[in-house]
């Protein structure tokens, strides 16, 4: 049994893309057998529908002069949203939107799973050091130095995995090391740097205005140690999705590609009981 979780910056702010985002979402959840899909750049009242049997929470409230822009779609028979909250860091008179903190229960294995969904601004404005966002995320995810439960960080962080700002998060490309160090997060997105697709996709975000590379890897999935060891949920793999149904996602005018992480779901409590 698998649990499949996706993330997509569904930049639907251009009116014609709103409808397209809906059809991409429906194709994406069907083809990739998703159970949860987190979205950002969602306009208030415009959360796409994933179809029958799906529900969602929209987090598009105002936050100071800006606005949250997230949604979480979930398959009702696969997961339950126990609670969710927005987490802000007040820093130098600014309200930094660190993450939407979503507590899930995975029904098949009765296991909790925490999702922290982020959409951070580009550091190019220079007003806020990206390391401050990373620090906020670390304080949230690992208040005592290490995450206390199975945690997935997903987001459009607007920096690449190689950025030194991540030093504050103990994020690594080294899965074996991360599985031994409780304070570490394994960042799947290291594998999505550079060209990996026959079509030439070389990241998750397409930005043709950059003369040196048209691709960046801003959309990332990081998992805590709990999800790398034997347990009710264990990371299998992740992928970047270029096509959904008949849609070439970038070709439609979207600039971000969805990313997906798959977890093996095992009812370890039942297994232990039957072994006993």
């Amino acid at each position: 049994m698998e649990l499949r979780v996706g993330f997509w910056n569904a930049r639907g702010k251009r009116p014609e893309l709103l409808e397209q985002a809906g059809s991409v979402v429906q194709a994406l959840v069907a083809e990739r057998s998703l159970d949860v899909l987190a979205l950002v750049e969602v306009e208030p009242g415009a959360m796409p529908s994933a179809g029958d049997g799906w529900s969602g929470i929209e987090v598009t409230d105002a936050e100071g002069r800006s606005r949250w822009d997230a949604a979480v779609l979930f398959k009702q028979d696969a997961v339950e949203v126990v609670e969710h909250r927005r987490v802000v860091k007040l820093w130098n008179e600014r309200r930094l939107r660190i993450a939407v903190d979503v507590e899930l229960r995975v029904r098949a294995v009765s296991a909790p799973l925490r999702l922290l969904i982020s959409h951070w601004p580009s550091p190019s404005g220079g007003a806020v050091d990206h390391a401050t966002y990373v620090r906020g995320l670390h304080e949230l995810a690992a208040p005592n130095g290490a995450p206390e439960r199975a945690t997935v960080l997903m987001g459009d962080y607007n920096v690449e995995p190689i950025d030194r700002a991540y030093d504050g998060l103990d994020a690594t490309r080294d899965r074996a090391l991360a599985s031994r160090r409780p304070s570490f997060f394994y960042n799947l997105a290291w594998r999505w740097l550079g060209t990996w697709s026959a079509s030439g996709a070389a990241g998750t975000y397409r930005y043709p205005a950059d003369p040196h590379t048209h691709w960046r890897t801003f959309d990332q999935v990081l998992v805590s140690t709990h999800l790398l060891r034997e347990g009710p949920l264990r990371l299998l793999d992740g992928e970047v999705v270029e096509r959904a149904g008949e849609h070439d996602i970038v070709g439609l005018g979207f600039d971000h590609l969805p990313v997906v992480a798959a977890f093996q779901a095992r009812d370890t409590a039942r297994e232990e009981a039957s072994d006993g």
Partner: protein
Amino acid sequence: MADFAKALKQGFEAVEVVWTARMEIEDVFARLSAAVLEVTDGKVRLELRRYAVMGPGGYELRAVRDGTSGNTLAYVKQSESGYSVSVQPEGAKTSYIAGNREELEAALAELLKDVRIAERIKSLAADPSDKG
């Protein structure tokens, strides 16, 4: 061979950092309570009460007046080392994460500016005759 003396000294230094952070946090909440007491003419003070539901480091921040059970204002979660501290105003969907004194003070100031929170303090401070 392990240098136990050096290890213990490092441990002591770490303890010092944690104790300093905890005292600093206590001081921030004490000043917060003193400010509330002053503005309410000595009627309302704030208390941090352990809140087991939140696990270790979990507290309920309550506004209390003698002879009343008081009103919950927020839930506070403090890490083992002091910082970080999260402040979740009662009934709110936004919580604040603070990694140092400045950020904690900003979060608590934000809490007091929240109309629902201020109302809870104000209603507690009001004398029965004020309530009409």
